């Protein structure tokens, strides 16, 4: 029975995948079917969000009620409380109601903005650490380009904008950076094709055996 289910799962995935792929190449013939299959996937995604929230709540419930008397228990308890309050408030006032917008603008946006501020410091620290960790020409080129772009993009106090650095920044970001980015994206595209083909051939089965 388990084997039949496994083969059935693989068959459904392969047929759906091939039809969606062919829908891109033959839009007049299979475009409608492709749209229908993608809509089905989007509907399933919505249900998966509910499963995800249950998963998040169960992980934090386990942690909040766990034996360890540390700050993690408290953080998880706060998360669970916030989850219940958010569901209640958004349920009462609606997704675009006053309380929903108040929740986002009072808690989510300030917390995320402060995390972004921390990220700036973390990146600066990481750039400095790079010199001690991998001191070779590629790292120096990386950091040198970053410094030129940063100085070239913002005017310095008392000095204003350096014309030479500004034109260097423009050249760096429009010629070598674009060429490198295209090379990386081509590699990523080939990797994505390979991954997709493995799934279409049934060699990779992320949906379980």
């Amino acid at each position: 029975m388990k084997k039949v289910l496994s083969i059935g799962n693989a068959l459904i995935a392969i047929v759906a995948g091939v039809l969606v792929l062919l829908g891109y190449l033959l839009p007049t013939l299979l475009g409608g079917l492709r749209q229908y299959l993608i809509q089905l996937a989007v509907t399933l995604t919505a249900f998966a969000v509910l499963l995800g929230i249950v998963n998040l709540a169960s992980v934090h419930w386990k942690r909040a009620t766990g034996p360890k008397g540390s700050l993690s228990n408290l953080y998880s308890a706060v998360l669970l409380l916030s989850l219940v309050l958010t569901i209640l408030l958004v349920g009462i006032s609606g997704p675009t109601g006053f309380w929903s917008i108040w929740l986002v603008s009072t808690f989510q946006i300030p917390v995320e903005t402060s995390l972004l501020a921390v990220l700036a410091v973390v990146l600066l620290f990481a750039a400095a650490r790079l010199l001690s960790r991998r001191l070779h020409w590629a790292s120096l080129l990386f950091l040198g380009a970053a410094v030129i772009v940063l100085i070239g993009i913002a005017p310095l106090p008392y000095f204003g904008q350096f014309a030479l650095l500004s034109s260097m920044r423009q050249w760096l970001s429009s010629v070598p950076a674009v060429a490198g980015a295209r090379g990386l994206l081509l590699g990523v595209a080939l990797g994505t094709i390979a991954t997709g083909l493995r799934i279409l051939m049934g060699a990779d089965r992320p949906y379980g055996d």
Partner: protein
Amino acid sequence: MNLVLEFLNIILGFLLLGLALSLMIYFMIDEFNRSPGGTRRLRDIPAFHRFRRAVGLSVESGKRLHISLGRGGITELPGGATFEGLTILECCTRAASISDRPPVATSGDSITAVLSQDTLHAGYASLSAERRYTPTNGRLSGLTPLSYAAGVMPDIHDEQVSASVFAGHFGSEVGLLIEAGERTRGLTVAGSDSLSAQAVLYAAAQEPLVGEELYAGGAYLGAGAAHIASLRMQDILRWVVIGLILLGAILKLVGVWP
């Protein structure tokens, strides 16, 4: 003219896909025909070499592996990187199945979280160790980029992680996750399909995976013949694409191409 271009587009699409598929089948047959003792020599990628060592060390020291699958879904373009992350998760699950602390997978997309649970389950089932499977080891950590980062950071800190792999779709917020991994003094191996994340990873991660190196994960971690075949197929297709780009440039230079 538009009709001709559309027709050419379809023909080229079919040709490239056909070529990719035939190469993959050919290399898979070649891999299956290889003598059991014979090993294929792959280009050295230090990140995977160090990671394989870190998996062994984590089992010995009773610590946990953390696999971050990013916040990309499978219904969009970043799906390729997410699937590769799932392959790496499966390899880690098998390699660390005897550990007291099984690997933990975090993601920022609900479907990816469900798939990570399936992958963990399949990994244990393949070793007849289904009783060791814990559903909460595949978890959703947050649905927005920064809430995902905020959710994963305490996981890395609390779960006694000895090595973290970041394989999937990330933005610049991955810098915060890498920093959390660094604070545990563990190994951080990271790759993404996003250019902004790759720039951050190059500076922050101990072992960054640049460009398509992420997609070689399965082949280097022993996921099977199909992964080695797809890696060989990518190598050939890369040269085909380079040839096509050069041909296009020459045709444009001589004025044949509009």
